[in-house]
Structure formats: structure tokens, C-alpha cells
């Protein structure tokens, strides 16, 4: 990966007070430090709940850290600020990862994460917009995020608002026809303000995607649907940042998709090497081991 010296900060205010454009090295280290903290939050939430979609969450942590610490425009103290970029969590069960990101973003207090999945909590297991500040939609019925994102992107453009709309979906969601209806619609309407981010962890509820319903040739599929497609290692922060920068190198009216290959359980060897499961089993004593492994791998 070629290093850039200066980040061409694209537009306006981001969540954190970073008045001057950061150097490439600063960008990478900021995101990496954030991702490390997020992984701890995820392990803590998993332990509090006794379970959870910890494997998937650890897999997308680098990606969400890059989004919330390097890309997204928002005001943490005002989650409804009309000029904010919208980040839609189509994959509702990944909420645990987004809560960690929202804590990093300053939208949620870290202390509140301990309530994850508990009765009366604002942080339900599957993300719901009416519960959580910063949660734009109630995802979870898979395949809904991208159609809604198309409408938001159309609506924002219609209203002369230059905010971007990100829709975060998974490779499993590519099974859903609605995703492809929206992919066609986005290209037809020339939605250059729409970014799809796909987590490719190659796993879905009944097993590996390759055995459930193959979704091969992903870059070619999205390109054929009229999108500017970039595929990266979703656990390589430098590559992710570079890819986000490259997403802007396309036609102004072309929707963009970032396809991210991720490793389930990333950062915790115990979980990375565990048998792949949609809902990963973690024994009570293993949470502390996970924490130690996380700190070990960061050194």
C-alpha cells in the first residue's frame, strides 16, 4: 500500500474535532486505536449479555472505526443534525458493533454499553432506530437497508443536501432480491451520494454462503449493475482508508460499493479459530482470555 502524506479531507465537519487535515500515518493510527477500543467494548458487551454476534462484530470493527473516525460527517451531540451523513445498519444483528462505534463517535456514553441486550436498555440486540441515538433505521429484516438508502439519497439530493448515505449490508443480504432492486434503482437514478459497504464474512445463518446460496463474482455483479465497485481486505485499516479515498474516483452520478472481506472474530485468535457459527458460542471463562488476546495482538 502506497502511503499518502495528506488526507484530502473531503467535506466539512466530522464527528471529532480535527481542524487540520491529518497525515496519512495519523489517520491510520487514529482508526487503529479506535478499533482496538471498540473490540474491548464488544467483548465487554458480549460478556454482559453472555452471548451475542461477537464474531461478526469483531470482523467489521476496523471498517466501522474507519467510517466513524475517518469518513462520516456528523455532530455527536446532535444525532439528528440534518447535514449529517446517514449510516444505515441494514444488518440489524450487527448492532453490537455499531454501539461500540457510536461510543467511539461520542454519540453514546461508554458506560451505557453495559446495558446491551438488557430489558429497558436503549441498546437492543437487533438495532432499532426508535431506541438508539445514531441508529438511522431499524434493520434486521435483511435486504431492507439499500432500498431505504436509495430513497434517502434521492430525497437528500432532491432537497439540495450534500450529505452522503452509507448502507452497511452483508454478503448474506445479497441473497435478498430487494437488494438488487435497489442496486438497479441507485444506478438508474445516478446516486453518486450513495455508498454501499458490504461485509463479506462468507457466513450466514445456515452455514458458509458458498453452501447456502453462492454469491460469486461480486465486483463484476455490482459493476454490471452500474456501480463503482472496490474490493478490499476489510481488516486492513490502511487499505480500507485508501479504498474509501478511491471510492471518490468515479463518475459523479455513479453509486459506489466497498466490498470488504472480513475475518470473523478478528483480533481474538480464540474466536478467529473457532468453528464458524452465525451465533458464536463463548464460554464464561473465555471473555477474559479474549481480552488478554486482544491486548496481546495489539502489542
Amino acid at each position, binding site marked *: 500500500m502506497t502511503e499518502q502524506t495528506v488526507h484530502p479531507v473531503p467535506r466539512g465537519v466530522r464527528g471529532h474535532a480535527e481542524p487540520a487535515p491529518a497525515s496519512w500515518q495519523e489517520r491510520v493510527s487514529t482508526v487503529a486505536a479506535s478499533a482496538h477500543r471498540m473490540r474491548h467494548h464488544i467483548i465487554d458487551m458480549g460478556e454482559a449479555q453472555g452471548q451475542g454476534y461477537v464474531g461478526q462484530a469483531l470482523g467489521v470493527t476496523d471498517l466501522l472505526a474507519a467510517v466513524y473516525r475517518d469518513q462520516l460527517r456528523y455532530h455527536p451531540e446532535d444525532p439528528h443534525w*440534518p447535514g449529517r451523513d446517514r449510516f444505515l445498519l441494514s444488518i440489524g444483528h450487527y448492532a453490537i458493533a455499531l454501539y461500540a462505534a457510536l461510543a467511539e463517535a461520542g454519540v453514546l456514553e461508554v458506560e451505557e454499553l453495559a446495558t446491551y441486550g438488557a430489558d429497558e436498555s436503549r441498546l437492543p440486540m437487533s438495532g432499532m432506530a426508535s431506541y438508539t441515538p445514531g441508529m438511522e433505521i431499524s434493520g434486521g429484516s435483511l435486504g*431492507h437497508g439499500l432500498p431505504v438508502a436509495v*430513497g434517502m439519497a*434521492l*430525497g437528500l439530493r*432532491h432537497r439540495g443536501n450534500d450529505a452522503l448515505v452509507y448502507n452497511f449490508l452483508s454478503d448474506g443480504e445479497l441473497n435478498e432480491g430487494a437488494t438488487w*432492486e435497489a442496486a*438497479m434503482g441507485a444506478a438508474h437514478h445516478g446516486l453518486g451520494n450513495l455508498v454501499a459497504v458490504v461485509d463479506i464474512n462468507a457466513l450466514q445463518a445456515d452455514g458458509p454462503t458458498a453452501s447456502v446460496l453462492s454469491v460469486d463474482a461480486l465486483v463484476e455483479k455490482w459493476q454490471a449493475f452500474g456501480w463503482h465497485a472496490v474490493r478490499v481486505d476489510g481488516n486492513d485499516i490502511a487499505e480500507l482508508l485508501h479504498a474509501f479515498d478511491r471510492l471518490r474516483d468515479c463518475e459523479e452520478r455513479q453509486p459506489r460499493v466497498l466490498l470488504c472481506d472480513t475475518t470473523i472474530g478478528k483480533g481474538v485468535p480464540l474466536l478467529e479459530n473457532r468453528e464458524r457459527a452465525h451465533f458464536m458460542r463463548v464460554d464464561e471463562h473465555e471473555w477474559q482470555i479474549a481480552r488478554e488476546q486482544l491486548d496481546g495482538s495489539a502489542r
Partner: protein
Amino acid sequence: MTKKRLTTSAMIASFAEEGQRTTAAPFGHALSGLAAQRDEIVGLTADLGKYTDMHIFAESFPARYYQMGMAEQLLFGAAAGMAEVGLVPFASTYSVFATRRAYDSLCLDIAEPGLNVNIVGGLPGLTTGYGPSHQATEDLAILRGVPGLTIVDPCDSVDIEQAVPALADSAGPTYLRLLRGKVPTVLDEYDYRFELGKAAELRSGGDVVLVSSGLMTMRALDAAQKLAEHRVDTAVVHCPTIKPLDTETILRVADSGRMLATLENHSVVGGLAESVASTLVTNNATRGVVPIGLPDEFLAAGALPTLHDRYGLSTDRIVKRVLEELG
């Protein structure tokens, strides 16, 4: 020579009777009129703009018209997204697609967040001779279970013209059973204004009360006239809002010895009849209701007059049924 049989004709054949006064494309004109006053109104369709009168709006406001293609999940998801950023969308397709094909999108993208998205469903009930693929005979049954969804079944052009701004004004999601093309104009002859959530007594009568919605109100008014020839004094209560139902009016008109019948352009399962019946029972007003509507069947293809007569929606069949019930 044998008499020429009626034919199915176009999918969107007008159900107006010969010589009846009609108004062209009342929904399209009402939406255009509203959009002239309110910038945030936008129109969407799923490859059925011409068939849901949305084309009138598209011609008036091309920059506020969004064609989503034959993709109903995208239609509703995108309408939700537009509402999320402050627009007030009207999204049209056929009722069968709105309910059967894109129910999950309607339910979760639009209704659960309580967005002001106004769904416009063409060909409700039995208003096409194309058979079950296009006949939304159970759309009310499907949608009545959606929390917070307002459901409107207008009678005529007057109802539609007045309902459109009311639907935009109501904060949450709505579903309008669209009558399109040359739509009968009936209610201007009565002292009537559409009011969301309210039923209106169009005609009083001491023997029978007909509680009707949609185009069946037009039939109820005709039937009431014919019943008068049989010395049956018939009241007609038009109930254009199916949900929330005007419980107060229903209980009031049911509180008498009159025969009570419901008339709906919908299956007798899950629509107006069952709404009225459950309202009565849950308010300890137990009494009989005669449900006049479509049978619990997949219906045949054919010409609309033939089908309305076969399945009991024609004025003659209504009169016959009421007289039978009266014994």
C-alpha cells in the same frame, strides 16, 4: 343470433355505469393540486404511473416524480427513505403488489417508524376482470393488522379529492384504495365532506341500515332507492376510513332494531364486515350483521358487470339479499 357476450375488456375498465357522471383521474389532479401548495410532496410509482393516475402528477411536476421500475420493495423502501429526510411521498402500485409482494417493506420500512408515506393501491377488491393475479380481494385483511396504518376506501371522485390532502396532513402512514380513470361522482349530491376517521350517514331509514365503504357506498345508495319501491326504508352510512374505524358512529347506528348489513368491495374475511362485527362484540353490543361482500374464494376472470353480479356486489344482488334477509 346469440347475444354477444360481455368481455373482460381492459384491465382497468371503469366500473361507472352507463350515463353516470364521472370525473377523470381525480387522484392525479388532487395530488397535483396539493403539490402546488406543498413543496415536500413527491410522487413515486413502480411502473404503473399511467395506471394509477400518477401520470397526471408526473406531467405537472416532473422533477418531483420518481419512477422506481417494477420493483415494489424498492418503491416502499425508497418512499420510506424520502420520508426520513422530510419529504411526503405518495407511492402508487396495484393493491395486490402493495400488499402481497411488498408487505414486509410496507410494514417495517414505512409503518414501524410511523412515517408519513401514503400508499396508493390501484385495482382494490374486484375492479378488474383479470383474475386473482390482479384482484386485491384481501388487501384490507392483510393491512388491518399493521399498527398505526390508516386505511381509506373512498367511494367516488369527491371522496378522493378530499382524502388526498387529509392523508398528507395525517402524520403517519396511510393506504388509499384507489379508484382511477373515469371515476363516478356521487357524493356531491349529499351534504358530505370527507373526514379522516369518520363515517357519515348519507341517508336515513327506519328498517335497514347499510354500512358501506368504497364503491359499495354508491351501490348502497342505489339499493336504498330500489328498496324504497319495496317499502323498505333504508339508511346508508358511508365508512370510508376502515382503520381507525369510527366506532362511535357504528355503535350508534347499530343501536336499534334495524337490520344491519355491511357492504364492501372486499372479501367477507378480514374487511369491513369483521371490523364492524368485532366493534359490536367488544363493546357488548351483540347483534347480527349481514356481511355483503366478496366470497372467500379466488375469483374468476371476466367482465366486471358479470362478476359483480355473480359475486353479489351489483345493486340488484344487494336488493335481493336484503329482501331475503328481511324475510
